[in-house]
C-alpha cells in the first residue's frame, strides 16, 4: 500500500445525502469521498443502510436530499456510459431463466453495445465486435468459470453463481466496481479466489467499493474503510477503523440517535453482567 500515492483523487463523492423507506430514515447527512483506484470496504450492522447507499449510487433509489457525483460529473452520466458495474446482494434474478453462463456475463456488455454501429446491434452477439467476446472470456477465466460457459445458469451451485455474477461485473470493464456482499454465502476457496481477483483488479487501477461482514478479509485486503450506521460513523485506514473498540462502538451506535450521542450510550446492563 505504500506504493500508492498518499492523497488519491476521489472516484465517488457523496454530499449531504438523506434517504428513507416509508418515512423511516435510513441514511442521514452522508458525506463521503471514495478514493479513486483504491479498495474501500463499507462496514456496518444489518439495517445500517449499506445496501441503500448502493441503491442511491446505482440510481435505483432517489435520495431525498443531497447529490452524488463520480469523477466530478453526475453519476447517471457514468452509469449510462457503462463505467459503473454493480453486483447486487439479493439478486432479483430468475434462476430458472433459460440463459447460459456465457450469455449472463455477456449481458454486462449490453450497455457498451449501444455505442456499436446500428447494424451490428440488429445481429446476434456472435457478430458483434470481438472486444465484447474477449472481455467475457477474460472475466470468466479470471473467476475460473470458463469451463462452465455453456451451462445453464440455474445448474450452478451458490458459490459458482456468485463467481459468475462477479465475472459479469468484471466483463463490463467499468472503472468503478460496486459489490454488495460479494463474499456472503460463499465457501472458503471461492472466497479466496474472489478476494484475489479483486486485488488484481485494484492493482489494474479500478476503484472497488464493497459491503462486507468479513473482518479478517477486510483487514488483510482493503485500503480504506467506511463505518456506517445511518450516519457515517468513521472513515480511515483499516487498522484504525477495524479495531475491536471501533467495531464495538459501531455495534452499539444503532441505539444512539446521532454520532454525538455515541459516547454517551452505555452497553445494555445484561451485556456487562458476568
Amino acid at each position, binding site marked *: 500500500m505504500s506504493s500508492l500515492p498518499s492523497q488519491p483523487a476521489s472516484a465517488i463523492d457523496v454530499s449531504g445525502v438523506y434517504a428513507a423507506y416509508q418515512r423511516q430514515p435510513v441514511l442521514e447527512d452522508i458525506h463521503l469521498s471514495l478514493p479513486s483506484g483504491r479498495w474501500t470496504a463499507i462496514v456496518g450492522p444489518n439495517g445500517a443502510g449499506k445496501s441503500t447507499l448502493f441503491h442511491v449510487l446505482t440510481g435505483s433509489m432517489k435520495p431525498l436530499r443531497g447529490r452524488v457525483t463520480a469523477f466530478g460529473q453526475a453519476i447517471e452520466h457514468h452509469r449510462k456510459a457503462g463505467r459503473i458495474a454493480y453486483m447486487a446482494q439479493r439478486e432479483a434474478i430468475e434462476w430458472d431463466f*433459460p*440463459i447460459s453462463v456465457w*450469455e449472463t456475463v455477456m449481458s454486462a456488455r449490453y450497455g457498451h453495445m449501444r455505442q456499436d454501429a446500428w447494424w451490428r446491434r440488429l445481429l446476434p452477439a456472435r457478430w458483434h465486435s470481438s472486444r465484447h467476446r474477449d472481455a467475457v472470456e477474460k472475466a470468466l477465466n479470471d473467476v475460473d468459470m470458463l469451463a462452465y460457459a455453456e451451462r445453464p445458469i440455474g445448474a450452478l451451485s451458490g458459490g459458482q453463481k456468485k463467481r459468475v455474477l462477479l465475472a459479469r461485473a468484471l466483463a463490463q470493464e467499468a472503472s468503478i466496481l460496486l459489490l454488495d456482499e460479494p463474499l456472503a454465502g460463499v465457501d472458503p476457496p471461492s472466497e479466496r479466489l474472489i478476494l484475489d481477483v479483486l486485488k488484481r483488479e485494484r492493482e489494474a487501477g479500478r476503484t472497488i467499493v464493497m459491503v462486507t461482514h468479513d473482518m479478517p478479509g477486510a483487514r488483510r485486503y482493503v485500503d480504506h474503510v467506511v463505518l456506517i450506521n445511518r450516519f457515517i460513523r468513521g472513515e480511515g485506514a483499516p487498522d484504525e477503523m477495524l479495531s475491536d473498540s471501533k467495531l464495538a462502538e459501531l455495534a452499539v451506535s444503532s441505539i444512539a440517535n446521532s454520532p454525538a450521542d455515541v459516547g454517551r450510550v452505555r452497553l445494555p446492563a445484561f451485556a456487562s453482567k458476568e
Partner: protein
Amino acid sequence: MLETLDVWSSALVAGLIAALMVPVNLMPDSVSEAFQYAFMQRALLTSMMVGAICGMLSCYVVLKRWSLLGDAISHAVLPGVAVAYLLGLPFFIGAFVTGALTSLGIGAIERHTRIKSDAAMGIMFTGAFALGVVLISKIASSTHLMHILFGNVLGVQQSALLLTLAASLVALLVVWLAYRPLMLYAFDPTQAQALGFNTGVIHYGLILLLTLTIVASLETVGIILVVAMLITPGATAHLLTDRFKTMLFISVGIGVGSAVLGLWLSFAFDVASGGTIVLVATGCFFTALLFSPKHGVLMRLWRHRSLGGAN
C-alpha cells in the same frame, strides 16, 4: 387514397393466402380439402399469425410471471369493445384503450397502496369485465358476446385480418430491435437499471405489446382463451430448452402448430375452433411435461431411479 389502400391490402392478403396454399395443397386431400373455402383460408392465415405472436409474447409472460396480468388485460378489453360499438369506432381502438388503462391502474394501485399485485389485478379485471358484460347485455345480442368471449375465427373479416397482420409486424419488430433490453429486463431488472436502461419504458412497453397482442387475437380465440395462448406455448418451450432464443422459436412453433392443427381438427369434427386450438396447445404442454429430455417428469423419475440404484 383510402380506396387505393383498400386495393393494396386486398392484394396483400390475397398474395399471403396464395403463398400459404402452396404447402397446404401438397398435403393429402383429406387435409387440403378443408382449406378450399375462402373463409377457411382467412381463418388459417389469421390463426397462424395469432399463434405466432402469442407464442412469442408468452415467453416473456411465463418468465416474468405475468400470467395473471395477461388474464387481467384480456378481460379488461371487453368494456372497450362495447364502448367502441356504442360510439361507432373500430372495436380494437376501444379494446386497446381499456386494456392499457386497466394495466396502468393495476400498476398504480400496486405502487401507491398496500394492496398486493394479485389482489389489485383481481379487482381491476373483474370490475372491468363486469362493466363490459353489463354494457354488452344492453346493446348487443348474446351471440355477439359469445363471439368476443370465445372467438369467431371462421367469420374473420378482412379488417380483422389486416389488424392481426399489422399487430404481428409491430410485435415482431419490437422484439427484434429491443431483444437485448427485453431479455435483460426479464432476467435481471436490477442489472438492466444499473446498466442505464430505462426500465420504466421497458416495463410499460412490454405491457403495451401484450395488450396489442391480446387485441389482435380477440376475433380468433376470444378473450377467455387468448390467455391460454399467452401462457401454454411459452411454458411448453421452457420445459424443452435452456436457451432464451431457442425458447422463443419453439414457443412460436408451438403457437403456429396448434393454430393450424386445431383449426383443421375443428373443421373435421365440426367443433368450436378457438377451443380446439387451445386444446392442441395444452396437449403439447402435457407431452413436453412427460417426455421432455431435460425437464420432463419421466426423465426425472428415470434419473432418480438410476441415482438410487447406484447408492
